[in-house]
């Protein structure tokens, strides 16, 4: 029986090869202004 369900996710190690364009939104520029979260930013280069 299937005991493990793997969700579809972006592979971080792969993204090391073609990422880093720097065009995505600055972390604090949306709604929070008082904390830092980067994981909820959208990639601008996909």
């Amino acid at each position, binding site marked *: *029986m299937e*005991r*493990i*369900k*793997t*969700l*579809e*996710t*972006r*592979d*971080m*190690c792969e*993204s*090391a090869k*073609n*990422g*880093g364009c*720097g*065009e*995505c*939104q*600055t*972390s*604090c*520029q*949306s*709604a*929070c*202004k*008082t*904390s*830092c*979260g*980067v*994981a*909820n*930013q*959208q*990639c*601008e*280069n*996909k």
Partner: protein
Amino acid sequence: MLHQYKLNGYNIVLDTCSGSVHSVDDVAYDIIAMFETSTEDEIVAAMMEKYSDREDVTEEEIRLCIGDVAALKARGKLFTPDTFAPMAGTLKERSGDVVKALCLHVAHTCNLNCSYCFASQGKYHGDRALMSFEVGKRALDFLIEHSGTRRNLEVDFFGGEPLMNWDVVKQLVQYARSVEKQHGKRFRFTLTTNGMLIDDDVIEFSNREMSNVVLSLDGRKEIHDRLRVDYAGNGSYDRIVPKFRRFVQARGNKSYYMRGTFTHANPDFTKDVFHMADMGFTELSMEPVVCAEGDPAALTKEDIETVKEQYEILAKEMLKRQQEDRPFTFYHYMLDLTEGPCIYKRISGCGSGTEYMAVTPWGDLYPCHQFVGEERYRLGNIWDGVTNTALREEFRACNAYARPECADCWAKLYCSGGCAANAYHATGSIRGVYKPGCELFKKRIECAIMMRVAEDAAKNR
């Protein structure tokens, strides 16, 4: 690095460094926990004993599951080693001194007198002032000149209350639009407002020009009016809510956030989030107050525990409302597992003091809006550029691997090392760690990922 947790009936395994998320049953959860430290036979024996009352848990089944775990490891989806530390500074080094986002403090004054305001009622512990068009224009030119090859430039009209300097905001937007094409740039504007001065002109102009508007509302009337008062001490809720409704209705599909702050007065902040959702607002954000320890608004240790429970309540209620076809979003739960940021973004820190800076009404540059008014954190000005280069290097060195406390933390690729301003205010150093903030951040990420797992399960049901 793995993080395993159980939430809302789901067993979740995060493989932090690959970004993989697994939803597993109890047996697989326990097998994964033992996998790196026990032999296959030891795992089989432990599982057979623990699940002796379960008919479906046979030795053959357990060995199959161990094989699945080994296969996931071989495919780089479990137990992925953390090899990113040497890359942590590369994006910022490659970017050089590029600046791509400015927080323009167009008004160091405010028409509300909120006691919890981190900006001390918009004055940032200094004098009241409005930014002139000339200063704002120079700030935009500074941004264009220092943006290198970056195409997307972000400008947040911030305060104080930016609508107290609305004509200058409009002129600055018009100026930016008049020059962006010739420089190959695209400006994205954000307006952050308390809503008191919203009128038809603000709505029409903002809905045309602002990529995002952030509207300050703390939730329930009694909570909002407790702190968000005018200088006569009158609450602002009844005056702003109708304006916010009109603004959002006219906004169509463009981004907005209703953004509140919760304090010691309402650690049960989900009631405020649900209040906003029940009013028909669907894009919501609620942030813990940032203030000095001992301030009556500050969250206590007991409050932190309450808030963590509240984050779970919020996630469960959001899932319920999704099923009922009346969804709303919560900023911190907007985790896109497939289209989210690359590893460079995740490890490079927030960008304050390097690619992101705040500009005062007088044209001084600070690493971000939360440092404005702290004289030792002045970076330079928009005419001479960054003159305190040592300070810029301090901020450049802030990243997910800059703090020894974060070395074994599973969440560092989600927070990128955390907020430098929070660290500074809590510890006196931008390289410090604001521990209550970490606790809340980790709970938020656990909830956000649980929601993706639950959504995936619902989709496949």
